[in-house]
């Protein structure tokens, strides 16, 4: 039979689509031609497929083999089509039965000896295959654990081209189970190294962190070098509620295309923590890629924490670029070979020194920065970005002597996480009719219209507003945080005490002392 069709999946960003690999063998001078907008790595597929086939014992005919990747107008990339191309050619040659290929899909890169190599992005590919109604997907054995996370579709792992050919001819089987070596380590076996009770003598900051976690509020921490900002930020993911399976699939799909996924151990329900260095470019933070869009740090922090240490040191355009994803929870990445939308719903944690030298306002230390220099430093965080930050913590350094005398924190991450989960559950019930789930998502007008805690509770706030000590925006922010504090304490509505705590946590309107 001179014509055969096999299926594979092409990825653009996180969006997968089924690609028909059409193979036609015709009586022409020998040639192996691949059409259908392949990129450089995919064009090289013909060389790999030819060698892999001949080293598996299948000699190509001395005829013209034409391979078309349909739909032909969509740019395609990567080495994951090798397996589908090889099977298509072998079917057109009559080596494997063509009728077996219907409803099947092949993903994998071929080594020259016919081994099937793992590829990136198997998880989102499988999601696309399931959506497209394919029944069976054959993946590289090394990707089997990742592929099996997707339910409702039959997945088989294959080690070599020869093994797959034997299976299609009905002469052998494929791997249906994750290899033992990988299956042994379960996610619960990895110990939690970071814990909230390791933080010593920063009770106010820990309390602020708890509120931030409970309401999903963005947070900033200003404090001298060594005061424990990074330590606190790193522990935020340990007190956030575990991800749902649906959420962790979204996160794993992003990690799968970036190539950092450790999915041999199953889905990790731990919220992610991303701490890009302040020299990072816009492409590294927002997403970029060499012609094809790839997700950046904001997407890798999806449903987790994005920590910007030394926030004022980041390039201004990087900080500005964060605004889109803060606003919409997703980010559009445009590159020459197409654009993609990646989810980017993260909790932002900014940390900064109080001034360039780090000593401004620190007891017993002298700040050497001029007023102008300090003001410029603070102004690098623009108004719109600051507006999004509900909680501002000032972290005072603790001396070694003081720390030695203090007991370690009483609240463990486990206990904190329970409190946070309860508070979030309470907020979710209250906000569900309005289509929100966390206090931090509430726009000001809706907040005031639906969740006014009563005149008595907000009397202080009203006085501040009237006296010009608080802006309208600051007022909304206090209200939001007050609701979260009430949720944490199991109160039905914020009291004057909760509002007062919120005012303290929110700090001054400006992020840093001077502006």
């Amino acid at each position: 039979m001179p014509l055969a069709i096999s299926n594979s999946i092409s990825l653009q960003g996180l969006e997968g689509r089924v690609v028909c690999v059409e193979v036609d063998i015709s009586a022409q001078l020998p040639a192996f031609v691949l059409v259908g907008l392949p990129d450089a790595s995919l064009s090289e597929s013909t060389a790999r497929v030819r060698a892999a086939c001949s080293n598996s014992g299948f000699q190509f005919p001395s005829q013209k083999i034409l391979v078309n990747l349909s739909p032909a107008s969509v740019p395609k990339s990567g080495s994951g089509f090798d397996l589908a191309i090889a099977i298509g050619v072998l079917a057109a040659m009559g080596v494997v039965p063509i009728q077996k290929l219907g409803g099947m899909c092949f993903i994998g890169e071929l080594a020259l000896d016919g081994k099937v190599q793992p590829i990136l992005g198997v998880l989102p590919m499988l999601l696309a295959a399931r959506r497209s109604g394919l029944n069976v997907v054959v993946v590289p054995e090394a990707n089997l654990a990742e592929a099996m996370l997707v339910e409702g579709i039959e997945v088989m792992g294959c080690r070599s081209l020869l093994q797959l050919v034997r299976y299609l001819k009905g002469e052998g089987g494929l791997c249906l189970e994750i290899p033992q070596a990988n299956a042994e380590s379960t996610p619960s076996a990895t110990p939690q190294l970071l814990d909230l009770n390791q933080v010593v003598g920063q009770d106010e900051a820990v309390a602020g962190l708890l509120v931030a976690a409970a309401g999903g509020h963005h947070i900033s921490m200003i404090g001298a070098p060594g005061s424990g900002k990074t330590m606190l930020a790193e522990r935020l993911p340990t007190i956030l509620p575990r991800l749902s399976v649906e959420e962790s699939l979204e996160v794993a799909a992003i990690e799968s295309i970036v190539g950092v996924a450790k999915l041999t151990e199953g889905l990790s329900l731990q919220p992610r923590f991303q701490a890009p260095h302040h020299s990072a470019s816009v492409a590294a933070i927002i997403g970029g890629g060499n012609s094809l869009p790839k997700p950046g740090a904001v997407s890798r922090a999806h449903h987790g924490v994005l920590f910007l240490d030394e926030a004022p040191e980041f390039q201004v355009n990087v900080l500005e670029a964060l605004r889109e994803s803060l606003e919409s929870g997703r980010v559009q990445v445009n590159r020459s070979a197409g654009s993609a939308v990646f989810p980017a719903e993260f909790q932002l944690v900014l940390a900064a020194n109080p001034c360039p030298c780090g000593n401004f306002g620190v007891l017993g230390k002298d700040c050497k920065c001029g007023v102008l220099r300090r003001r410029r430093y603070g102004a690098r965080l623009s108004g719109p970005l600051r507006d999004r930050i509900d909680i501002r913590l000032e972290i005072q350094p603790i001396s070694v002597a003081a720390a030695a005398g203090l007991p370690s924190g009483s609240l463990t991450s486990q206990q904190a996480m329970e409190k946070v989960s309860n508070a979030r559950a309470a907020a979710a019930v209250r906000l569900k009719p309005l289509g929100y789930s966390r206090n931090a998502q509430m726009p000001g007008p809706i907040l005031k219209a639906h969740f006014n805690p009563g005149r008595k509770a907000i009397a202080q706030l009203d006085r501040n507003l009237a006296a010009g000590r608080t802006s309208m925006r600051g007022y909304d922010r206090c209200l939001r945080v007050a609701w979260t504090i009430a949720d944490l304490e199991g109160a039905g509505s914020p009291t004057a005490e909760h509002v007062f705590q919120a005012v303290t946590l929110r700090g001054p309107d400006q992020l840093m002392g001077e502006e």
Partner: protein
Amino acid sequence: MTSNRQWLGRYGEDRACDYLSKLGYQIVERNARSRDGELDIVATDGPTLVFVEVKTRSSRHSGHPFQAITPLKIARIRRLAAGWCASRQLPNSQVRFDAISVLVQGGQVAIEHLRQVA
């Protein structure tokens, strides 16, 4: 060695001519040499003028004979054919390029014929 190879090439072209004659082709010219190279066989298939490149091998050690007919070689044959047509009066309206592989192995001769390769 060289003469041996020349003999093999010559032998293959003879076999190819026999084969084409049996199909009813008229051989117009063989080894039509010009400054740039040589056309192995020029023949007519009814109204069509056919330029045939013949490749002869005595084994498949270095691949199928057709694999030696590269896109570069085809481009050269096209150029030569254009020159050949230009230098004479042509009653034919159509032109075709064919390739014939002759595999001489253990006293057996296998001929494969590809029509319209370019």
